[in-house]
């Protein structure tokens, strides 16, 4: 080791740079929040429009304007829940296979492939849905229209799967080897060890994986804008899945472009943004808490 001076200097520099990027992230999130608040709160200065928020009709350009958020909230809920129903079992199963069952070579092939799925731009998923899957589903299942909630769910599921797989896989890896070895040593089969020892131990990690996938799905915009039909109706029961819906994200994307600056419509769109921000925040915080619990349990 020669003089230690330049090394310290370099380290300090890098440390500072890393620290500032970390702080910048926090500042950005706070700024986004403040910005959303600033542009959505003026809506509440208009009593009529505020009252319409709880209504069931989203008609932003009619006279008087109607900003009923219920259909949009339910639309997002339907699409996202549908996506979870498809992606959580698939994602967790895939993670189990990769972490526990697959031979080394297959694992090394599968992992990057799943990650590649995350690299597909959402507009490509959307085009796939609107040009191929939508018309095909409409024809084979005799649906009235080829743009419906479940189609959005299906495509979102594939977008959420990479997140779910990688977080679940980490959770499965965090299960101590000794537990697995002990289970096998007691005479349990491989399958019994997985279902009765490994999965229960990794439980909170798997829940976190699902929640992070949910966070990914609820904020997705382009695909749902293209395939879900954007009809602001209140979905009715299970039938709602095969009929068009309108999500919160698609509403912002479709309407922001031509909205007059500082109009009530503009504020209403920002208010939807604020709601989305809060929903994702809550989902992510819950996921974080669960992951922390997982860390403690592993110890």
């Amino acid at each position: 080791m020669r003089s230690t001076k330049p090394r310290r200097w370099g380290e300090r520099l890098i440390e500072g740079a890393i620290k500032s990027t970390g702080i910048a992230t926090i500042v950005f999130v706070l700024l986004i929040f403040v910005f959303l608040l600033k542009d959505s709160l003026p809506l509440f200065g208009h009593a009529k429009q505020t009252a319409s928020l709880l209504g069931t009709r989203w008609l932003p350009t009619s006279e008087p304007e109607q900003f009923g958020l219920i259909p949009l909230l339910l639309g997002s809920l339907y699409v996202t829940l549908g996506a979870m129903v498809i992606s959580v079992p698939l994602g967790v199963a895939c993670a189990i296979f990769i972490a526990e069952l697959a031979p080394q070579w297959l694992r090394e092939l599968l992992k990057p492939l799943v990650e590649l799925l995350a690299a597909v731009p959402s507009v490509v998923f959307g085009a796939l849905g609107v040009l191929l899957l939508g018309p095909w589903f409409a024809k084979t299942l005799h649906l009235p229209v080829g743009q419906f909630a479940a189609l959005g769910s299906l495509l979102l599921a594939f977008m959420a799967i990479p997140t779910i797989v990688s977080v679940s896989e980490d959770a499965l890896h965090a299960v101590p080897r000794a537990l697995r070895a002990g289970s096998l040593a007691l005479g349990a089969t491989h399958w019994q060890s997985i279902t009765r020892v490994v999965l229960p131990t990794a439980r909170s990690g798997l829940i976190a994986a699902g929640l992070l996938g949910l966070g990914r799905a609820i904020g997705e915009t382009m695909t749902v804008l293209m395939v879900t039909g954007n009809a602001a109706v209140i979905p009715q029961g299970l039938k709602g899945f095969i009929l068009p819906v309108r999500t919160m994200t698609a509403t912002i994307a479709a309407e922001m472009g031509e909205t007059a600056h500082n109009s009530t419509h503009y504020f209403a769109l920002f208010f939807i943004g604020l709601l989305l921000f809060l929903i994702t925040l809550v989902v992510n915080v819950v996921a974080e808490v669960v992951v922390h619990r997982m860390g403690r349990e592993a110890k």
Partner: protein
Amino acid sequence: MKQGRILTLAIGLAMLTALMVLSGCPGQKAADTTAPTDMAVKPPAEAGGPPATGAKETIRQIGSTTVLPLAEKWREAFNKLHPEVDIAVSGGGSGTGIKGLISKSCEIANSSREIKDKEIEEAKAAGVSPVEHLVAYDGIAVIVNKENPLTKISVEQLSDIYTGKTTKWDAVGAKGLGDIQVINRESSSGTYDSFKEMVVQLHGKEKDRDFMAGTLNQTSTESVLSLVSETKGAIGYVGLGYVDDRVKVLDVIPIGGKEPVKASAETVLSGKYPISRKLYCYTNGEPTGNLKTYMDWIKGPEGQAIVSEVGYIPLAK
């Protein structure tokens, strides 16, 4: 050890460069705004365009969202020919445009309707004399699936369908098609506004009528065309210039009329086709200088070629 140190230093340097580039950005951008860019940056509507930059003349063109896509294309093409003229285009609606002309916050007001007498009075009081320029025609075709037996529909029937009063194809004379799948455009579309005014509100006669909530809103003309071509029970509307053979165009019976009119450039130009209207630009007095060059270019062959490109109907030669 040495290698690791070099690596960390390299990473640090990369970060530092990134930081410098980032922090250098505002200055860079400020310098950029004076140069013409191809990007379609719309100035904020209330500001009425960016401040004049240097000796360049800025023409501010505000108004109808129906004319907006056309004006954007005009601006783009004209800017290539005359880089010395800055054109700033923004929407806000026909009323906003004419108000802007009266308050002198724009040079051109785009409008999808004729100026009202009241507005002319206001303009005169403000010392502005609006001059009307017919720049294009807007015609909207009503389209259905090819398997739909219907050949004609009245404006009143269309209004009932789009307001949700009529929900079954049987009610308009097409048997066995079940529910009507009502395809609409997003509210940000100029065609949406046109259709609302001309069909849903029966050319402004029923101002309190509006689209029902729950129509299938599409973000582009293309998605309306493909959805209608794939959906048996669908009805939709697109700019006349965009119609293709994947869909069937319905003849339209005018309000209170009996004879269905075929949708075509001829019937729009003759004023017979009921879902059509004239698009105007208004200027303060007869245009002079660059403004005149621009207005003449719009009405000339190049400007009119863009009119058909955007899906509207050009002026008769």
